């Protein structure tokens, strides 16, 4: 057993104990102003709060423009938030008496969707993997040794693949290198932003298996961002559903998939192809595209595509209500006091 194979409570870096969430996200907000648009802005992430528990895989789903990739970057301060706070294992990030962003990044790493553009094309991949530990203070020889070890752990023979350049690898191999690079600094948390979306289906399965094996081996915590409900169902412990910069539903994976409460989550689930030609859909679950995040609809942002929309939904923004078992959703129909005609009927 290597010194890395230990349970979370034995990790010398653990500060808050098992009950302390590894990451607390409070009211995170980021708007991107549009030049010449009179102060209008893309409200990419608009007040988002959740916890990431130690050792879990939190799946984040949503369609394009819902802010899931911005959220991923905010969690590592690759983009600075306009407002909100991050608390990593009890320490506030980038705050007095907290930890610095650099300290956060020593414990949290990221894997991006585009496996090619996230590797330096002019560097053999073993150097790309060694770069992180080297920058974080390991001597060169030690950093190289870590790189060899990590390449082997992601299933790439370091002698065969280490000296290669990114363009000499297939998509699946490049994504394995990116995983090796993220893990080379021995992080506790990895943010995976659509890590298998660009891969072929047969390779997707290999990389998902690898990610699960590495998580067990290194006691990692994942935030796994995807647009694919089937992938999220397979890999996540809990699922967070985003729509136009807001959380619409969050809960344990089985709850979300067997008892989705928000009409948007239901639509997302119902939109999945059935895999059975005898049960083809005749009518789509929802119509229209997700609206432009520049001017999201007032009140509930989903109301323009929602079959249950009422005048109330345009004027009042639904709050997240708890349904027990850590399952929350933001819909007026779930709040008996909201005044929606179907209020309470859904709960």
């Amino acid at each position, binding site marked *: 057993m290597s010194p890395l194979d230990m349970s979370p409570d034995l990790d010398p870096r653990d500060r808050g104990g098992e009950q302390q969430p590894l990451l607390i996200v409070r009211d995170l907000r980021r708007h991107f102003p549009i030049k010449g648009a009179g102060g209008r802005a893309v409200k990419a992430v608009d007040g988002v709060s959740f916890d990431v528990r130690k050792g879990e895989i939190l799946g984040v789903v949503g369609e394009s423009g819902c802010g899931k990739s911005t959220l991923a970057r905010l969690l590592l301060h690759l983009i600075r938030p306009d407002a909100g706070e991050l608390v990593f294992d009890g320490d506030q990030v980038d705050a007095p008496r907290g930890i610095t962003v650099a300290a956060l990044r020593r414990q949290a790493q990221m894997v991006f969707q585009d496996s090619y553009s996230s590797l330096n094309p002019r560097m053999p991949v073993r150097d790309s993997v060694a770069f992180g530990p080297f920058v974080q203070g390991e001597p060169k020889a030690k950093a190289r040794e870590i790189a060899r070890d990590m390449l082997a752990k992601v299933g790439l023979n370091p002698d065969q693949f280490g000296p290669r350049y990114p363009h000499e690898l297939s998509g699946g191999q490049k994504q394995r290198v990116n995983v090796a690079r993220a893990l080379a600094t021995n992080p506790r948390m990895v943010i995976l932003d659509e890590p298998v979306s660009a891969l072929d*289906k047969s390779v997707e399965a290999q990389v998902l298996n690898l990610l699960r094996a590495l998580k067990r081996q290194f006691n990692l915590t994942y935030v796994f961002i995807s647009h694919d409900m089937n992938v999220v169902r397979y890999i996540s412990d809990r699922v967070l559903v985003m729509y136009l910069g807001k959380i619409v539903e969050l809960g344990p994976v089985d709850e979300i998939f067997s008892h989705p409460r928000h009409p948007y989550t239901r639509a997302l689930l119902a939109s999945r192809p059935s895999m059975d030609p005898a049960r083809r859909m005749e009518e789509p679950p929802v119509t229209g595209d997700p609206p432009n995040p520049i001017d999201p609809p007032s009140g509930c942002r989903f109301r323009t595509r929602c079959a249950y929309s009422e005048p109330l939904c345009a004027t009042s923004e639904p709050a997240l209500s708890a349904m027990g078992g850590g399952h929350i959703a933001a819909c007026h129909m779930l709040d008996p006091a909201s005044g929606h005609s179907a209020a309470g009927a859904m709960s």
Partner: protein
Amino acid sequence: MTTPEPLAEVRDLHVRFVGRENTVHAVNGVSFTVNPGKVLCILGESGSGKSVTLRALMRLLPVQAKIEGTVRAAGRDVLALRGKALRDLRGGEVSMIFQEPMTALDPVYTIGQQIGETVRRHTGCDRAKAWARALELLELVRIPSAERRLDAYPHELSGGLRQRAMIAMALSCDPRLLLADEPTTALDATVQIQVLILLRKIQRELGMGMIFVTHDLGVAAEIADTVAVMYAGRIVESGPVGRILAAPLHPYTAGLLASTVHGQPRDRDIDAIPGSPPDMRRLPRGCAFAPRCSRRREGCLATVPPEHYPEPGRMAACIAIEKHAEDTLLVHG
């Protein structure tokens, strides 16, 4: 009952891309037919030759592509067409929709202008008639406030509406054969299913034949009548969509089905196909899937496996099939 003349007929199609240093063998002997009113899905991963096969039907391949074989579409010998005859075919009786509407549409013309131009090119009608036809088409693909959208530029539309506009343009001259190259892959899940349902309805209403290229088994399940599974430039299995999804014969198809995350138990690893697809510059001599195949045996790498027809309408190219099929027949017979 007489058999109708097939809308598309491809026999022993080979496409090679000859470069200075090497030759990519993209398509290596593909044959299929598509009858009017039917949907064929070509299913395959990147580099399997599915898009190249589709493009060969309209000769939309670069000059360095060497095409051999027989390609007939809408009654024409496509490989023999030259000049105006080829341009008449494209967008006339055969038309294509692409994965990325943003690059397939011209950014500096409005939707109405682009559709109108196609209509006038093929029918020779005047501007007013072409405009009216464009409006009719946008309504056919259920674009809301169609009249206003005729004056919109592609960037002013959402992804789903752009894809509908491209479908409208492809339908503008009542094609008999519609070719679709992953038209829903770039779309969000809730939009993808809308476009699939729309395409299926229009295909049925207009009685078109359609060839739909995809990498997604779920998409094939929603739209196909028959499926042809491609691997390394060859069709390794084909048959009715329900049979293929329920009881795949070829080990590659079976592997793809087993490795899909759909309905996968959460506490177990996925049965992934090991390895990666072959280098199309250096294909193995026999079965290209053999190096990754769990049922590999002696002889797999000797010659390209012959086509077996174990059930009516089904084909699988694998030397393990014959035996397998006999077993099944014994059980059911």
